[in-house]
């Protein structure tokens, strides 16, 4: 013990100033002091500015009457609703366009990505041109293209294109019949839920059986029969409770039915097309990342090319694909904020309007930032779960 004492006291060159721990502590304290100092300075400035200029502050304004209308309202909203609700409407709109965009972009991206690997020269070139065009122009420009394109190509409401099933397409958007649910329609919903649960159960049992005995079971057809059949049965049994509200021509626009506005349409298409170009590149890199030996080994086992792709290549490619795919999904969500340029009422637009009507810039921008941050974190959390499930189980 004594010798250790001596050793500990011995460090001749190590004055306090040379002790790594002390220095680390010192440096971090310095950082904290500087940080808190500047935060304090900023907060003081903000308080001082707000008081000096008699600007209202605080989040109380969220309970005030909004007084403005929003064009797309997925939840009930009128000009009598609160500012807070207006922001929520915007947030939901952002989520809607982001989710729709993510799904479409993934589909287009996979198609184009695989197309770029195609043996077919023409298809390969078309896909390459697509990727090189969309990857190299700003997303804002793509949105403008779609928007002015949509407005320029489609006819005025009076000369709408008539599409099958009572739907219409014109400058004001895409109209289709809206389902009106009558009494007893809850039965259909229940039937759908039951059918989905059964389909999942069938799939699981079939898989277990195949693992155990090698016998296969036609899961796909059973599932389709269940999911279509059961609700249909419920529909008949409950006495046809479903009717449709058809869009009709009125003085200005078509009224009735369900309307998808051109703002949403062009934002959604633009985001999908733009992000698809990046996803295509990711998919291509993923498939390339699977070593040729895998394909050859699968072929040697006698698998057909479709099965090779489905059972050997894609599962392995997915592992490479998912992390960059996540960041593309995040990018798409963030790029949906460009909606403001064409007037789709997403979070940025509604929060911006609220900011503008109340003049409370600090609070408005803070709400925007936090909302996007939470959205991004949730998206990455979901994708991390997916990634963990896809990860190679090493034995």
């Amino acid at each position, binding site marked *: 013990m004594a010798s250790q004492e001596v050793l500990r006291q011995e460090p001749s060159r190590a004055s306090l100033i040379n002790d790594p721990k002390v220095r680390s502590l010192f440096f971090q304290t310095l950082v904290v002091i500087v940080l808190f100092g500047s935060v304090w300075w900023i907060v003081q400035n903000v308080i001082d500015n707000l008081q000096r200029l008699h*600007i209202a502050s605080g989040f109380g304004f969220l309970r005030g009457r909004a007084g403005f209308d929003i064009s797309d309202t997925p939840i009930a909203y009128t000009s009598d609703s609160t500012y807070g609700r207006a922001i929520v409407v915007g947030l939901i709109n952002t989520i809607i366009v982001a989710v729709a965009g993510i799904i479409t972009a993934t589909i287009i991206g996979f198609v184009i990505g695989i197309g770029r690997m195609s043996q077919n020269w023409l298809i390969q070139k078309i896909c390459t041109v697509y990727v090189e065009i969309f990857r190299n122009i700003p997303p804002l420009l793509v949105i403008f293209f779609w928007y002015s394109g949509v407005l320029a190509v489609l006819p005025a409401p009076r000369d709408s294109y008539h599409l099958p099933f009572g739907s219409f397409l014109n400058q004001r958007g895409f109209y289709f019949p809206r389902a009106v649910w009558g009494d007893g329609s809850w039965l259909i919903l229940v039937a759908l839920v039951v059918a989905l649960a059964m389909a999942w159960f069938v799939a699981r049992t079939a898989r277990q059986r195949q693992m155990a005995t090698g016998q296969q079971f036609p899961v796909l057809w059973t599932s389709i029969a269940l999911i279509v059949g059961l609700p249909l049965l419920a529909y008949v049994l409950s006495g046809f409770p479903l009717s449709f509200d058809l869009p009709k021509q009125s003085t200005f626009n078509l009224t009735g039915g369900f309307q998808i506005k051109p703002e949403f349409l062009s934002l959604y298409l633009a985001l999908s097309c733009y992000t698809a170009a990046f996803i295509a590149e990711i998919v291509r890199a993923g498939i390339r990342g699977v070593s040729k030996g895998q394909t050859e080994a699968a072929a040697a086992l006698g698998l057909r090319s479709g099965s090779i792709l489905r059972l050997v290549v894609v599962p392995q490619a997915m592992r490479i694909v998912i992390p960059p795919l996540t960041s593309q999904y995040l990018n798409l969500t963030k790029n949906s904020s460009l909606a403001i340029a064409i007037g789709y009422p997403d979070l940025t637009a509604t929060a*911006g309007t609220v900011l503008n009507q109340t003049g409370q810039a600090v609070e408005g921008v803070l709400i925007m930032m936090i909302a996007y941050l939470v959205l991004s974190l949730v998206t990455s959390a979901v994708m991390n779960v997916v990634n963990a499930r896809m990860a190679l189980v090493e034995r």
Partner: protein
Amino acid sequence: MDFQTRSVSVIFLDLTGIIAFDAVREWEAARRLRCGIPGNGLEWELRSRGKKNQGLPENREKGLWVMKHIAIGILGAATFGFMASAASATTLDTVKAKGFVQCGVSTGLAGFSAPDDKGDWQGIDADFCRAVAAAVFGDGTKVKFTPLSAKERFTALQSGEVDILSRNTTWTINRDTALGLNFVGTTYYDGQGFMINAKKLPGVNSALQLSGAAVCVQSGTTTELNLADYFKANKMEYNPVVFEKLEEVNAAYDAGRCDVYTTDQSGLYGIRLTLGSPADHVVLPEIISKEPLGPAVRQGDDQWYHIVKWTYFALLDAEELGITKANVDEMKNSPSPEIKRVLGQEADTKIGTDLGVSNDWVVNIVKAVGNYGEMFDHNVGSGSPLKIARGINALWTKGGLQYAPPIR
């Protein structure tokens, strides 16, 4: 992968330690240098001024010194180039010190503030700023314009980025109380109206027929709120089509995205000119709101508020007294004591200096932009493509609302 993990690395060195250690070593080196040979640049300079030269690596040190000073100079220049002066003096002092009035205008609304082909701002709002510059400096060109979106306008004024917000902004109580603004007056009495394409919608001649229409409107404006109120009060439905920028609203309306365009009526006349075929569009007779448009300044600086307010009144008084751009010099010798007083020709007058400007401030204003009537005609009235009638914007003597307290 972290290649620096503690468990693996034998020669683990704490990062902070190294940073702090380096700092100490540098400090020590500096001290040594200072004792022996010339140390840092500034010290060297001081010493060399007193007694020329200590020898040794003079050239290198000098080079260093020069570079350092160039760097400081450029930093300083950068600060001047980009930052407004930091003094917490009154707005008038700040404006005088920098030599121009910074004026917040719209991003382009014909007749009010819009850049012409050469990039010079034209319009009644821009001219008002020129009038203030003329009052302060005697020179209407000493003004710089900052285009502001609807969203930015209030912060820009509050933060001191602009000295005046002259941007077709409606005067409301909320903006006076909760936003910390002071509106100086109403340079243009306006009201919100509707415009439709009469060719596409024959038979619509009243706003009350607009139920079910798609309405284009700019977001974050009082217009948006009035619109909601109007349709609600008349139990009508509508589809709002909301854009951030005026240009976007124009484009969407022109492309037929909406049936109706709503904004201040003066704006509608201006916008109509920029549309594909102006003759097709008509402005409906209804006016659904009061939109007193006027310049605003920050709260808390009464002197500046007075200067801007009285610039506005001086424009009106000049018109009332018949002082125009053309005759202002003759008018100086007018027998009328009132005109003499307004133009600062009275002996020992202190009207201008009490305000904080020169005594011939009204002369300067009128020379720069004319009187209110001239300003109106030139920008939005008969002398402009907009051809808006004076209407309620006429002087009170002619049945309008424009009324100015006397200058005395």
